């Protein structure tokens, strides 16, 4: 199966690989997927508490090229966005941007889950429950 240029670029030069200090109050961590399913994504955001803007995002992903590209792209999109804006990122935006084939759509779903899960974690840590959406777990 041929991958799109954009997937290859993110795979070969992944953006924002790394780990943020999850003990910090303004860091939200999302860990989604499972090793036996063949993909696990960990996505972290660091939020400026005064403005509610995401100042940094990092990821590590165990998975195929599309999973790695989806998470790399997600971290790029998250930086500079407010939490509310970040919640509007839809998996189909990722599919479109990376030209993922139908068999790889689950990779984008996982990335959306990871974003929502990281935001939820940040909100829980900071006692912000109000608009907390429930994360779809696509069971």
């Amino acid at each position: 199966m041929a991958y799109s240029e954009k997937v290859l670029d993110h795979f070969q030069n992944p953006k924002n690989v790394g780990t943020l200090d999850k003990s910090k109050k303004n860091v939200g961590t999302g860990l989604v997927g499972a090793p036996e399913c063949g993909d696990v994504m960990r996505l972290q955001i660091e939020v400026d508490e005064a403005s509610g803007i995401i100042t940094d995002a990092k990821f590590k992903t165990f998975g195929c090229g599309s999973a790695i590209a989806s998470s790399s792209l997600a971290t790029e999109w998250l930086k500079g966005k407010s939490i509310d804006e970040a919640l509007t990122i839809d998996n189909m935006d990722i599919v479109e941007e990376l030209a993922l084939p139908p068999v790889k759509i689950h990779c984008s779903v996982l990335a959306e889950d990871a974003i929502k899960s990281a935001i939820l974690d940040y909100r829980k840590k900071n006692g912000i429950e109000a608009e907390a959406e429930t994360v779809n777990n696509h069971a």
Partner: protein
Amino acid sequence: METKRLIYLDNNATTPVDPRVVDTMLPYFYDKPGNAASRSHPFGWIAEEAVDYAREQVANLISADPKEIIFTSGATESDNLGLKGVFEMYASKGNHIITTRTEHKAVLDTCQKLEKSGGQVTYLEVGPDGLISLEDLKAAITDKTILVCIMWANNETGVIQPMKEIGDICAAKGVLFMSDATQAVGKIPVNPRETGVHIMAFTSHKMYGPKGVGALYVSRKNPRVKVTAQMDGGGHERGMRSGTLNVPGIVGFGKAAEIAKAEMAADAARLSKLRDKLEAGLCQLEETYVNGNKDHRMPHVTNISFKHVEGEGLMMTFNKNIAVSSGSACTSASLEPSYVLVSMGLGDDLAHSSIRFSLGRFTTEEDVDFAVEAVSKGVNHMRDLSPIWEMYKEGIDLNSVVWSAH
């Protein structure tokens, strides 16, 4: 990875055609275009003679009688003909077939189809090393059993089943023994008569011959086995497989068999050394496991799991330079890992982390050295990206983590 090298380590998928085979085939496309079934002119006679010669070459490779070779379009057709042909021919004797969980899909899917037509199939489990238990086999045979079908060597792991022992059990119980020997013929000595195999499927394109031609060995004496044709037409191949013979393909298959017979021992000795070198090089990496019984396997294959790295992603790090195949198929929502490895008791995580390396006649030591370096680099890169590798390194027990299934 700046180099433009392209290294082929996927010889279990298919082998390149040996140039000597190509040369032998070429005249049969234009200069000698006859139909081997045309009895009335020299074009037909020449084609028939060429097919007869190739049939001898192929029979010779497996120490069989040329009359025991039925040419087909490949191993999948041979597996279908053997299984369905026996099921129909011996329907009055019983309807029970015994096979294994780790067969190729050509056998498993055919067995499933037979189950829908009233067949009963027992799928033997394999141990962690990929081998079946002879006791399980003995216990599974009933008075309704007509056929035991067990592959000679596994395509994913290279594990070789105890064929002679299985043959003895089948002989003692009086049931037919069939084998899918696709990965074994031409690479290791295979002698169905001595082994007690009565029906055997194999193909040309795994032994440096062309694609689109294979064979089914059907024993002609002690016992004389018959299979019901699955393709009706002109009654070719002693009525067991109709259809105009693929003369250039068969000529190539014959030549490939002749070369394999002459060079098998030397190829196997050289390749097992290279394979061992590849394996030793890659096993320098932490948390790396060889899958399958190392004492009973093909000389040119190794299947390795690189823990906490996903196989398809890993392949992407080097697949511009090195062709291999992965036990992880990340191509569907269900993400199914290799059923062969899962049948051996590997966790899904290790099955998703596996890569099969299959060397061949044209693999060089330089190729192996290059592969060790490139694959090691890829594994390290993927581990740097892997959250579960990080967790493992921090000493977190991954089994204690509550994963969100999706």
